[in-house]
């Protein structure tokens, strides 16, 4: 991992307003739902902006706003850019 990156964190734990990069989709996510997330554009290294965490995780990926239940967001691993933190 690059020195300018912090350790991987679950997306569900990221503060609203933060910019992060997607690191990996965890194996705990149902394979069909993982395909769905990939289709929404959640690919490795893609920048994401966290808009809110309650009642669900809401993110902006490119110009697409996605709402994810915490059960899914807990298994999406992201890296927080130190420069943006």
């Amino acid at each position, binding site marked *: 991992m690059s020195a300018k990156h912090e350790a991987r964190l679950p997306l569900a734990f990221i503060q609203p307003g933060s910019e992060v990069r997607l690191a990996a989709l965890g194996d705990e996510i149902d*394979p069909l739902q993982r395909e769905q997330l*990939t289709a929404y554009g959640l*690919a490795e290294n893609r920048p994401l902006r966290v*808009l*809110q965490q309650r009642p669900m995780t809401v993110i902006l990926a490119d110009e*697409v*706003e996605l*709402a994810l239940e915490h059960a899914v967001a807990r298994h999406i691993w992201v890296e927080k850019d130190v420069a943006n933190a």
Partner: protein
Amino acid sequence: MTLSASNAILLVGHPNVGKSVLFHRLTGAYVNVSNYPGTTVEVTRASARFDHQVALLDTPGVLALPSRSDDERATMRALLKESTRSLVQVGDAKNLRRTLTLTALLAELGVPMVLALNMHDEAAARGVTVDIAALGEELGMPVLATVATGGEGIGELTASLGQARAPQALLRYDAAIEDDIGQVSTWISRHAAHPHLAARGLAILYLGGDSEVADWLRETAGEQFAELAALRQAAASRAEGDLPTLLARERTEAADALAASVIQRAVKSSPLLSQRIGQYVVHPLWGIPILLGVLFAVYELVGVFGATTLVGLMEEDLFEGILNPAFTHFVTAAVDLPWLQELLVGQYGLWTMGMTYALALILPIVTTFFFAFGVLEDSGYLPRLTVIANRLFAMIGLNGRAVLPMVLGLGCVTMATLTTRILHSPRERLITIFLLALAIPCSAQLGVVLGMLGGVSFTAVLVWALAMVGVLLLAGFLAARLIPGRRIPLVTELPPMRLPILGNVLKKTGGRLKWYLIEVIPLFLLGTFIMYALDKTGALPAIIEAGEPLVTGWLGLPKEASAAFVMGFLRRDFGATGLFAMAHSLSPIQAVVGMITITLFIPCFASLMMMVKEQGAKTALLMVGLIVPFAFFIGGLFNIALRALWS
């Protein structure tokens, strides 16, 4: 009109990118167009405005191909079964990466294509500019910018259809995967060649696990299909990971690279107003007051303006004041046969009961409901409602997505039963259809209930509403535990909030009303005729007599209420209207018990048919077998409880 089967143009694309609006622009035909994904649940066909010999097909939105969901399978079936002249891929200009990921697969099918980058006004507002000319050159096919809602670019799109070309492939897969694709496509060319789709495209879809393509190949190749299955098995075991995932990843990377070369992004200063409003609507603090405000506005429009003001004007002033006396006078003078007079304008007359119920009582209520629903769906509020409702729906084994058919069910349960196709698993669909059939009153019935119980007291309305919510949660809780399978967590796209376009909302309201009236008027007339026949043959008094222990003894209602339940077998709102008609002879407790029972009673005949279509006759009949005794059981319990508490 007969449309040439070998001359079809298919509109394909992701959900909520404006395919249906574009379809309307190109054909004049209107399908339900909404600002939420999954509106088009079936393929819609119409002849093109520019050439009546050309059939245009609007396909359900695909999140991705190979197909996984019902919507995606329906689109893939259309691709396999139609003799396609060309494809129009409709994409979201502000999300080019995703659009091109789908292009990367469609391009392999070898069908002439045009790419319409729609909503480019929204892209521009977000500082996203796409170099359309460069993209067209890279892909080797016409690419156009459109704004379907405003009609921009439609002329250019129509003109470009003549220049549609099979695009260049966006990528070469990894060498080992290419080797597998080559083997499978060679086999397909020899044993199961498709008349229009390229073998390479079918090979990629088959290796990616597309069940529709697999079914088509199995059907076409017959016994030799086992060889193809063995090739896929071998490819899967050679792959360094899950083969469908590897294929999808390579397409995504190719789309990313191409998108990056043609997109320019301006630095954004602050979120747009529509984005800020969208965030407030799902805000943990502000979301609930906004929801209550929306519900209040809908109640004012449907419950007060529709069910009180408009129904008053239509029923009392127009029908009872003018039309019914005039029609009765005309029939009495023109028809000599007393039985025919009675059939037309008697107590169970086709006009005085059937048409009056359908037009004077029901039409104003459903019109206002569908208008309100149209405004909400056009605004982009409904997908955000799924976020707010998610926690509540988790209690009944569903996720927030189920709120969409439930809310639509408050308009028409039949239509909502069809819309359950937007749900992702058979288990979610089964539970939602059961709950729709059991405890969701359609707008016509809701209007009658509010009209009747509103006249009793606010407490009566509250008891009825709590009973419905309680039954919904209890039945959902039990169903979620009895029906095998697990709950799928919610992942949903939140489309931008938009100011609803009045013309769009009115067209949509008109389309739904037409659908509703075509369904409701024949059934109301049939119901009235059955009531007339039962009355004339003496069967109705016998049924009333036979139902007395249940209706009078258990439910505590007057024995004449049995007639309303007979009517309710045809339509619940017809039955509720029957109870409404005898409101003056019911006590407050009887009114509440009667409305609780009839609301839980079996769904209308049309929605029963839709349940059969969606779940099969056995499951639908099992649901009815559970619902009817359950309705009487709960009604009786409330009769006992309310008498104990209120007396």
